[in-house]
């Protein structure tokens, strides 16, 4: 079993992928970001995603009957289009949809409206690229 915690202002999904990058299992993290995943013993790629955030990715090895814990990680807000870089086009999406509610990926603080608060979150991570190393 794998346990851990992923912090983001939005719902987080954590998945385990095998050597061929095929999804083995995934789970929606709890509201506080904690999660647990069960899979057969082996080495996996673990990936955390949240809409509008850079994903985080690491490697983990599960043993039969054992529990592994991966360090807590905070996802970086601002990758609205999911291309693994927080760039000018992500910022433009906020500007084009100002005071609207969609696309949901642009509502980075999950308060139901796309505005300067979301832009400020993006600005903190401007030019960051992903996936963030998680180990």
């Amino acid at each position: 079993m794998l346990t851990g915690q992923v912090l983001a202002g939005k719902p987080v999904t954590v998945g385990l992928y095998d050597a061929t990058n095929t999804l083995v299992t995934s789970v929606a993290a709890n509201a506080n970001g904690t999660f647990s995943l069960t899979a057969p013993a082996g080495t996996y790629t673990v990936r955390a995603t949240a809409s509008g955030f850079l994903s985080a990715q690491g490697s983990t090895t599960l043993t039969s009957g054992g529990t592994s814990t991966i360090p807590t990680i905070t996802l970086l807000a601002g990758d609205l289009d999911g291309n693994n870089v927080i760039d000018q086009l992500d910022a433009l999406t906020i500007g084009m949809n100002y005071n609207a509610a969609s696309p949901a990926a642009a509502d980075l603080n999950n308060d139901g409206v796309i505005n300067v608060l979301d832009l400020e979150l993006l600005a903190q991570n401007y030019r960051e690229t992903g996936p963030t190393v998680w180990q």
Partner: protein
Amino acid sequence: MKSVTALSLAILLALAIVVNVSAQSTESIWLTANTTAYKTGETVIAVVNATSATPIQGFTFQIRYDPACLRPVNAVSTIPGMNALPLPQISGLADGSYASTTPQTVNGALAEVRFTALKGCQTNLTLESAALAVRNAEGFAAPLPSVAIGEKNVALMIDKEVVSAQSPETLAGSVLPLEPPAASAPNYSGWLIALLLAVIVGVMYGAFKLFQIGTSPVSTSTSRPTFSEPSQLPTLQIKHGPNAGKNFTLNKLPCFIGRDPINEIRLDDPHIIGQHAKIFEKDNGYYLMDLGGETFINGQVVRRGSTILKSGDVVRLGKSALLVFGS
């Protein structure tokens, strides 16, 4: 024979239409400057231009400059409705992003980027990247494909002769609107809107000139900052936190901000320290200095130093207070 001639004419006509459509759909971006010879201390105005047959909802550019020769001052879009998105800048690269909630037609200047010439030198401005963007069906910004980048380089000759410091000119752009959109406006005709804009710009310019010749109370007033009335003095709008909705006109500088009553602007916010930050004026610019609390400008931390403030900058103090600077 007649049918062959008719067919040929039809083909020619079709070709002409295709060629015409092709010519109209050409999108391009290029860089120009108002002039290429300057003296030290003068303002260099670089203009990002574009033509596009497709109305756009945003554009971006990155202009490489030599920070030893030029210091960026500000940038605005000249397209009505196109708002600047305040994003962190890095030395040597003027990074501009502008967006509109509605499609805008562009044919000419997109944005003006102003620099101050620092010393005698030969230097270049280089349009390193640029894009025109539309809002796709999912609501995301998407670059228009096949936009040609025209003239990328502008060579500048800066003379070492120093002129007296120039004051920034009145700019007719805007930053991201921070208020909810107004109710739909009546459908005024274009000339009426242009007339209104001209009057507004004229009034702003006149007020700005008054400000420059020293009739402003900025340097002489001993009063506290006031809730803002229509004014050309710098302002702070509080957009988030316990004091959201308050607007201040900075009619006394330096202006201290913090939780203690001794501050010119007192913010009753548990995440703000007694004396959190101050705004002061220097060399015709406004600066924000952090005094020990958590202070960010456009998401970039300010630690025990001062950073120049530009109109539209988003300042965060502590964890919740979000202020927008206007000048």
